């Protein structure tokens, strides 16, 4: 479903060059849940942002369902409609109600009728457990509720893949659970997911595979079993010792 080949992303500015992602190759199969972990500054967020081309690749290729997003001829809008993204800061549209947050892109991009879009939106809001808040503005919701709306907004496009960029990092601790529950349910339903997170519990419980990144490179890949019981690399061992 997602195949990354030798992806690199270099930031330059004021004479400083940072290789945020440095020759990463990885793949996410259909219905697979891949969790990317690593210390801050390891390039994991940059990598996942490369997957739907929010960051332009400096080198390498990423194929989504066989289509190369680094190719200039690729219609990125079409690709992005198939790839849902959930952000650390939610990024809900503050001037639109919860319902309008979910229906806007359905109507503009998927060209659905208002009726069909609203129906889909209501179904998803019920699914993430905030059906009764549809006419509220995002600022009236708690962080956890906002993030669940953001997940529903991405799902409304019927994406083939969901990307999560540290979805629980900006939440108060007591709200982390409700968001993780929604993500677990998605995983159970067979959604293809790529998740950047610091939630080791989630990685252990839900991931099919775990990628450990450090300094822009993938250090170790494995099943959660392997990862948390018998990591191979010293860097991984050190990281796990610090976070667990």
């Amino acid at each position, binding site marked *: 479903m997602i195949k990354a080949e030798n992806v690199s992303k270099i930031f330059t500015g004021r004479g400083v060059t940072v290789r945020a992602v440095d020759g990463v190759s990885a793949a996410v199969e259909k219905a697979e849940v891949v969790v990317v972990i690593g210390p801050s500054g390891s390039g994991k967020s940059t990598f996942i942002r490369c997957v739907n081309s*929010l960051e332009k690749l400096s080198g390498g290729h990423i194929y989504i369902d066989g289509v190369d997003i680094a190719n200039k001829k690729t219609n990125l809008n079409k*690709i*992005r409609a198939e790839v849902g993204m959930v952000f650390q800061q939610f990024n809900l*549209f503050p001037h639109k109600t919860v319902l309008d947050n979910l229906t806007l*892109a359905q109507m*503009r991009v998927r060209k659905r009728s208002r009726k069909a879009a609203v129906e889909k939106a209501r179904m998803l809001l019920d699914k993430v457990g905030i059906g009764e808040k549809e006419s509220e503005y995002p600022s009236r919701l708690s962080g956890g509720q906002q993030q669940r709306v953001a997940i529903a*907004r991405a799902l409304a*496009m019927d994406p083939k893949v969901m990307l999560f960029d540290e979805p629980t990092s900006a939440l108060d601790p007591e709200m982390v659970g409700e968001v993780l529950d929604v993500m677990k349910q998605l995983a159970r339903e067979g959604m293809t997911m790529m998740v950047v997170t610091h939630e080791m519990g989630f990685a252990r419980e839900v991931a099919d595979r775990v990628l450990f990144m450090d300094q822009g490179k993938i250090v170790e890949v494995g099943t959660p079993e392997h990862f948390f019981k018998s990591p191979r690399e010293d860097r991984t061992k050190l990281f796990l010792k610090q976070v667990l």
Partner: protein
Amino acid sequence: MNTAEKLWPWKLLLAVILIVMAAGAWGSVSRIDYEWRWYRIPQYFFYKAEDPLKIPFDGTVEKITPTNSTSSVMLLSETGENVEMTVDTETIKVSEGEELFEGDTVGYHHEWSPGPLMTGLWTTMWISAVASVLALVIGLVAGLMKVTGNYTASSLAAIYVEIIRGTPLLVQIFIAYFFIGTVFNLDRIVAGIGALALFAGAYVAEIVRAGIQSIPRGQMEAARSLGMSMPQAMLDIILPQAFKRILPPLSGQFISLIKDSSLVSVIAITDLTKSGREIITSTFAPFEIWLVVAAMYLVVTSVLSQFVFYLERRLAISD
């Protein structure tokens, strides 16, 4: 802290200061030899225009039908042509059956007409309104050109903004009328409105740019990640949010525009300021007229700022 308890001394102080300032102004004016003639002012707002009605041919008065204060006078020409005139009853100078020659006065008709202050105000308002709409369009385009990231587009917009902001409006109006207006044979109104719109547009462009850049990057990213195109995201996500933020500076700019429009009087557009100058040449009442003109500008700008205040509160529901 109980603010209600502590506010009244300050209110008192404010009142005292204002009264002292007014008294000071009054005292200074009384020392010079100036005769105030406020009674002359109202006629420059509205006056009763006297319109003499004259018979357009040689003929006779066929019939006079009085209705309240006006009467309808039927006139018949020698060639059998009929004309009806509405004349104030008290001013009828003819009687039924009387024979008249072409150009004889049948009577007078009085009508309330707007005086030069009102027509000047109207000119100021519509010139400002048209210039504001154009400035908004120009500013939006230039502001968007600045944020697109395209080198040519943003440089063009930057050059435009720099030139306009670095030169006085008065000089721009002269250039628009005497140079560009002569080359392209422009009407003075077109030159005046054009100069005002280009001037305000440069400031609007900066306001728009700042407004767009004040919206967090995540908004654009979220919209794009849903598959929306750049123009769709701008139109549906960024601009509505930016508009809410730039409403206060934008309204300030349009209020400035109304005031700046007084400068078009130098190219002989009869706006409120020019009307004031014309009235003064015939009345020798500059103090009264300039105070009235200032008050009229103040009324227009206050109404506008109150309207924007109301709009801001309505848009604040999603905060």
